């Protein structure tokens, strides 16, 4: 098969350094794509702000100061203050970390489960495949945050439950993509060769299939984080996620909604930052897809 010949990693795979090689290859492609780089730097910047930002803010995110409540942006309060006189800039800086953590954790949690289900489904095929994929169809029948709403109506609103709810939504999307990629790799000759050599299924799956289907997983991961951030902040906005006084960005927007008539700035800045986070992951994911798409090599 020509697909075998065109796989540059095939020779290295015998030396067992396929994973590392793929990673190097991945970085080389990534650095050639401008969009992916911009997105990547933006994500890095946001992570740094999330980690170190709270150390440098002058105000306390939860300290009320009723003397300056609902004040517009000024030199003292860059993004203005809210109805308790809390500094919105400080709250936004603290909120970035919370919102991003929920987005990333839910994607990892759902991604891992989805990847396992997808590989098992694609590798073993047969009845197991049918059962898993039908289950995924059922999960996919609930559009977007509806499944999260259903789950939160049972579990109650909390950060942990929001992560579980969004992860549940991630599972079928990852499972489908991973199953497809596994199917395209499963019947290649090198897998047959590994089987003939007596490698266990576990070894084949983790050392020989997973490294070869990493690209679509990474792309999907980045793009899913973007929608996970939107879902998480949306749930908080509805009052079904983070609870006050948490400065999660969606919760900040929810505060802002009540004062939209007198103090529009409260809602403006948190939303802008949510958009920036989502934009960063979208651009990164798009760029990655272009960089990693085998058709574009």
């Amino acid at each position, binding site marked *: 098969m020509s697909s075998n010949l065109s796989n540059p990693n095939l020779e290295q795979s015998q030396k067992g350094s396929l994973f590392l090689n793929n990673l190097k290859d991945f970085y080389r492609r990534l650095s050639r794509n401008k969009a992916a780089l911009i997105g990547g730097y933006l994500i890095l910047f946001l992570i740094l702000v999330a980690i170190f930002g709270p150390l440098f803010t002058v105000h306390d995110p939860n300290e009320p100061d009723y003397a300056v409540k609902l004040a517009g942006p000024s030199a003292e309060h860059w993004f203005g203050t809210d109805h308790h006189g809390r500094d919105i800039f400080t709250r936004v800086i603290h909120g970035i970390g919370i919102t991003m953590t929920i987005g990333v954790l839910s994607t990892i949690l759902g991604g891992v489960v989805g990847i396992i289900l997808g590989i098992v489904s694609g590798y073993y095929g047969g009845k197991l495949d049918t059962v898993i994929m039908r289950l995924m169809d059922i999960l996919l*029948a609930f559009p977007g945050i509806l499944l999260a709403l259903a789950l939160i109506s049972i579990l109650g609103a909390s950060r942990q439950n929001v992560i579980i709810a969004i992860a549940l939504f991630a599972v079928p999307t990852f499972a489908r993509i991973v199953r497809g990629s596994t199917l395209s790799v499963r019947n290649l000759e090198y897998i047959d060769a590994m089987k003939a050599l007596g490698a266990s299924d576990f070894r084949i799956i983790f050392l020989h299939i997973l490294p070869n289907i990493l690209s679509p997983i990474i792309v999907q991961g980045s793009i899913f984080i973007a929608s996970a951030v939107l879902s998480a902040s949306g749930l908080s906005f509805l009052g079904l996620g983070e609870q006050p006084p948490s400065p999660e960005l969606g919760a900040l927007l929810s505060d802002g909604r009540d004062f939209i008539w007198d103090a529009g700035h409260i809602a403006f800045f948190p939303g802008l930052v949510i958009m920036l986070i989502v934009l960063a992951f979208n651009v990164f994911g798009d760029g990655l897809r272009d960089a990693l798409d085998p058709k574009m090599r």
Partner: protein
Amino acid sequence: MLKFIIRRLLQLIPVLLGVTIIVFSLMHLTPGNPAHIIAGENAPPETVAQIEKRLGLDEPIPVQFYHFVKDAVMLDFGNSWRTSLPVTTELWPRFWVTFELAVYSMIFSIVVGMAAGIISAVRQYSWADVTVMLVALFGLSMPNFWLGLMLMQWFSINLGWLPPTGWGSPEQIILPVITLGTSGAAVIARMTRSSMLDVISQDYIRTARAKGLKERVITYRHALKNALIPIVTVIGLQFGGLLAGAVLTESVFAINGMGKLIVDRILARDFPVVQAGILVIAVVFVFINLLVDISYKFLNKRIDMD
């Protein structure tokens, strides 16, 4: 074609059954006895037992599930725990509001998205293309509830042109439709552009140009028609986002649709209404996906879907 439709319909049965099981278990996985929630915190045990009996909660779970499915097929979802009205009575008018909102938003997404995408593709790398793609990227990344609040602040509060809340009059429709339709428009614009670009570079378009056909005819009759399949795919995928986004949009503009109803009743722990609302949206979504599948088949006879 008919065989294909019948087969897809049969495939829906396990999905619908699974969806029903999940929705049914919502109430049974909830901590606390539903009868307690209805009767109130300090109700005497006899009252609670009475309510249990009336709702059939004392029966085995499979029997309850059987009754649930039987009633749901007849569109009977019991009575609300908060208002005591039949759930269907509460749900039905709200359903149509959300339906209208979703349809208008979809039309907005398709018209704006495809127009922008075609302009972008025909004038690739022009300033118009760059602008459209930048706006699309932002549109895609914006939380729609934020966009809604900002539109409300600008057009309703600052300028006073449009009403900030409600649903019904033409003025009330504009802002929610833009809010809900923007991300879909962005996705459709991006897909239209890339699909058109794929097609435009093909030989038969060059032939059409060589024949001396007008650029308009080439764009709309030759290129667009063949670029349509991926666009339809993406439009189909947008419906899910639309139904989910309606929840947030309705909340922002205080529109009394299904989404707002579900959120309000989750907060009020009114499970029959929540169950019915979620079930109805999921079933509608499943059937929309079926329609999308059938329309691919119709658009492209080459697709063979098992």
